[in-house]
């Protein structure tokens, strides 16, 4: 596993305590897991994502991510309706390891509460949490 200083956290994303990231992408917001989370899990082998159209509340489980010897649940950072899922991950789950903020994104949602995003952590706040 890497040192925190070796990991990448984009400035334009917001972060959750459960290590998801959120980025605005036009009208929708994109969600994935952070560089820290993928590094902790190790080689990702499977990602289970929700059906497009499902409505989920903040804190709901929207999927699971599996490495060889661990399973982690994925939690909604804000409420919303799933508008797209990253189907490429079905055949290439390793993208979550290699490009967690780009091609390794997981779902896009129409947020029910766009302002809720502002309540999430900034990069500095998230780093502060990781460094404990």
């Amino acid at each position, binding site marked *: 596993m890497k040192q925190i200083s070796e990991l990448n956290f984009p400035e334009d994303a917001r972060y959750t305590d459960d290590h998801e990231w959120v980025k605005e992408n036009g009208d929708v917001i994109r969600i994935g897991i952070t560089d820290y989370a993928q590094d902790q899990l*190790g*080689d990702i*082998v*499977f990602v289970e994502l929700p059906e497009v159209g499902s409505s989920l509340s903040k804190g709901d489980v929207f999927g699971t991510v*599996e*490495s*060889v*010897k661990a399973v982690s649940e994925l939690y909604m950072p804000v409420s919303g309706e799933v508008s797209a899922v990253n189907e490429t991950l079905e055949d290439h*789950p*390793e993208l979550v390891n290699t490009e967690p903020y780009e091609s390794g994104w997981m779902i896009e949602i129409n947020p029910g509460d766009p302002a809720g995003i502002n309540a999430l952590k900034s990069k500095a706040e998230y780093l502060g949490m990781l460094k404990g």
Partner: protein
Amino acid sequence: MKEKIGTTGLIFNEPLLWEKGSPGRTGISLPRRDVEEAPLDEKLAGEGPDFPDLSELDVVRHFTRLSQWNFGVDSGMYPLGSCTMKYNPKTNERQASLPGFAGAHPLLPAKLSQGLLSLMYDLQGYLGEITGLPAVTLQPAAGSQGELTGMLIFSAYHRHKGKPRSKVLIPDTAHGTNPASATLCGFKAVAVNSGPDGVLLPESVEALMDDDTAGIMVTNPNTLGLFEDNIRRVADIVHRKGGLVYGDGANMNAVMGIVDIGDVGVDVLHLNLHKTFSTPHGGGGPGSGPVCVTRQLEPFLPVPRVVRDKDGYSLDEDYPLSVGKVHAFFGNVGILIRAYSYILSMGAGLKQVSQYAVLNANYIKERLKDLYHLPYDRPCMHECVFTDKHQQEHHVATLDIAKRLMDYGFHPPTIYFPLVVSGAIMIEPTETESKETLDQFIDAMRQIAREAGNCPDCLHASPQLPKLQRLDEASAARHPCLGG
């Protein structure tokens, strides 16, 4: 250091079964046809499976070569913590394969199965005596099915009392089978954190135990190899609230003749015969998971029960409160025969088994604790748990240490379990290893600790001697290929 016991020798490549053979060969002596062929409706007839046709020698070489790629207790020390890989006595195999036992149909009338019924009856008695819980079922086919049976008893008991309960308390050090078994019975598993010394604190249990909690599952000694010394108080708390105490007896091999599990306050306990009672694990099973309970819970045990009266032994189905059946017949009887043979061979010497198992583990603990971090530095029972904390300074992890041990000729310990210890290395030598073997193992571990400082990459690249190097488990899981 003396010469390593791990070395290389001539082994063979061997293809998959279906890459061998030729249609028309056979490896079996088929009985001659002495009756006419009977017609069969064409709609029902199939083509038969696409099995390869092999000669007898093809089959013999195939599995002989495969066996040479494997490591068993008979090959060398197998200190796999929590799995109790002790020697599997050869005489037990002879007994289990006696023609009368091997050829016995499970539904034979009682008068034609007295030998096996008496064996099972006596084994129940011995296990009751060893544990202090007098009512015993031999039916569960493995430890985890014993746990399931125990949870079925919890459920049936509370339903019988008129108030079903929904939760079961499970310490964070428990085997994964505990929460899985509880869930299978419809209980919600509630985790209890262990205290700073690695054992349960009565106040943690007190805080969680309520009248909707069916009881607690406790492994004692626990998976850190520590005796849960508050068990009596924990049991009292649970009993006061109307709950039951389940003992996971996976580690019973540490306390035979020392602790009376019934006296401690445990109501239901499963045993793993392939751990404590020396039956072979066979690369995955079969195990056997007898369940021992108090007299109060006896009516809930699975049926049929083996009973004895003046006419001899018989099977009795008439237990209206019974949870039912967990096995089509009576469990893994072949394994029961081996455990029975072991108990008859040992007698009260089973106490020495526990004493030496604990002595061996403490000896290893004392001789390695200067080089490996010991998260709970206190006397252990039958196993000790180290971590890779010191080796991490050189970027060497538990996995590297485990893999390197293979090159030295040892099976690795259990690693990364229990989950509450980061980078756990869980060593269980068992009582059947001699001091010389333990010393060789200790030397190897000490040498590896030195290598971690001198040549971390040597460890990252290990093992070197086995037929294969480290395997790509990630791609196996990403693109599963589960058959040919």
